[in-house]
């Protein structure tokens, strides 16, 4: 047997609170990211992702406390992303207990930051988060472009070339989000996921657009990702982690089903 595909619930955190809340189990405090993390740990999630969307500078330190309390209570890997711009940001997150840190915009504006981070902390904890849209007209060869600022700003950078470049610089994993699918529930952009996964030797996490469990199977089987990230499908109780994992396993994707 080889590595199992991973299911990664992602929690959006703002000023230390979960955005919109999580209502899939009876949590004492549905807005507390640590409560949600513990519930996902108990549910058998393979990994957890926090995306810090805190806008204000003053609020940014709240994530360290969230990560610290999560690492004390959860015995699974935790990745933290959002607003990571300096080596000091990474150092503080790792010291708080993050296993991996994901770099997004800073990798686009300053690719050398990826190299600096990987050399300092090791490739195994540096994830580069790639937000891309498919930009070719129908019938033309596939072309994917990097977008920043939540999909608003085009960069002109080819997503597959960028993926190769950041891996060469030391990224140990890529989180590939299809921005044209995010929030649509129409499934991952499989062409994008596969184009990047086949171009790089490191693991790829598919993200953006999950609406049902078939989409998660497609992300692994057709997109060649090794992990799938999802948010609302779990947070709003549509499916449990175990339902997703059993569904994927039954569909022929080997999963970790430890009781």
């Amino acid at each position, binding site marked *: *047997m080889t590595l199992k595909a991973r299911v990664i619930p992602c929690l959006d955190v703002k000023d230390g609170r979960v955005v919109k809340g999580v209502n899939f189990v009876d949590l004492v405090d549905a807005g507390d990211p640590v409560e949600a993390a513990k519930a996902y740990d108990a549910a058998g999630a393979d990994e957890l992702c926090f995306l810090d969307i805190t806008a204000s500078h003053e609020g940014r330190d709240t994530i360290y406390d969230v990560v610290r309390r999560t690492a004390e209570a959860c015995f699974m*890997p935790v990745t933290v992303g959002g607003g990571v711009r300096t080596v000091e940001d990474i150092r503080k997150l790792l010291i708080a207990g993050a296993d991996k840190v994901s770099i997004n915009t800073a990798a686009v504006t300053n690719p050398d930051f990826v190299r600096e981070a990987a050399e300092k902390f*090791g490739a195994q904890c540096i994830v580069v988060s790639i937000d891309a849209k498919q930009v070719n007209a129908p019938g033309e060869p596939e072309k994917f472009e990097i977008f920043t600022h939540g999909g608003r700003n085009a960069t002109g950078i080819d997503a597959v070339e960028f993926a190769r470049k950041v891996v060469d610089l030391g990224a140990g994993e890529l989180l590939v989000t299809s921005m044209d699918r995010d929030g649509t529930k129409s499934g991952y952009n499989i062409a994008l996921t596969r184009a990047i996964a086949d171009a790089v030797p490191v693991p790829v996490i598919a993200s953006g657009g999950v609406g049902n469990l078939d989409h998660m199977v497609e992300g692994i089987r057709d997109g060649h990702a*090794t992990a799938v990230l999802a948010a609302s499908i779990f947070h709003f109780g549509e499916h449990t982690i175990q339902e997703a994992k059993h569904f994927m396993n039954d569909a022929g994707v080997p999963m970790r089903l430890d009781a």
Partner: protein
Amino acid sequence: MTIAIIDYGSGNLRSAEKAFERAARAHAHTPDVIVTSDPERVLKADRVVLPGVGAFADCKRGLWAVEGMPEALEQAVRKDGKPFFGICVGMQLMASRGLEFETIEGLGWVDGDVTAMEPADKTLKIPHMGWNTINLRPESHPVFKGLETGPDGLHAYFVHSFHFACARTEDRLATFDYAGTFTAMVAKDNMIGTQFHPEKSQRLGLELIANFLDWTP
């Protein structure tokens, strides 16, 4: 029971500390888990844990930069025979040599070299990152009490690109398959080591730690 987790600047140790505390309580031990860079406290502890993340050479230099620590480890583990648990690069450091970027001597407690993983299937991703099952050698070990191993057994969380190629198969307690057979755990005398992260491996990890705390070599 005092459990000393050695702090030599190799990453965050809070998860390891909390995992040992939880595992100890689960098996009715009264845990006194200390994260320390003080060789005296290592010498006084009942059990010693050596964690490690990153590159072999960095970890080796970091450990040797703590004054008196290599000597304290040698005394506590090899001479006093305290139960020892190496985690990830902490386990790799038990080897004779590391061949990551440069050749560098390890603690030399278990014969073998730490070298780059080269799965036969070149499409497989490196690092070996994620959940894999482990295969126990025919002679089991007390730390596996009550744990299901093999292809249908429990999973361990790995993240590494280098592996411990043991010189003697009897030192290799468990393996994992990744288009090739690689060392998941070593065991020799009073020592065990895991390539995976027990503090991130949910049930398998916590039970393994609890069994280690029960174990009298």
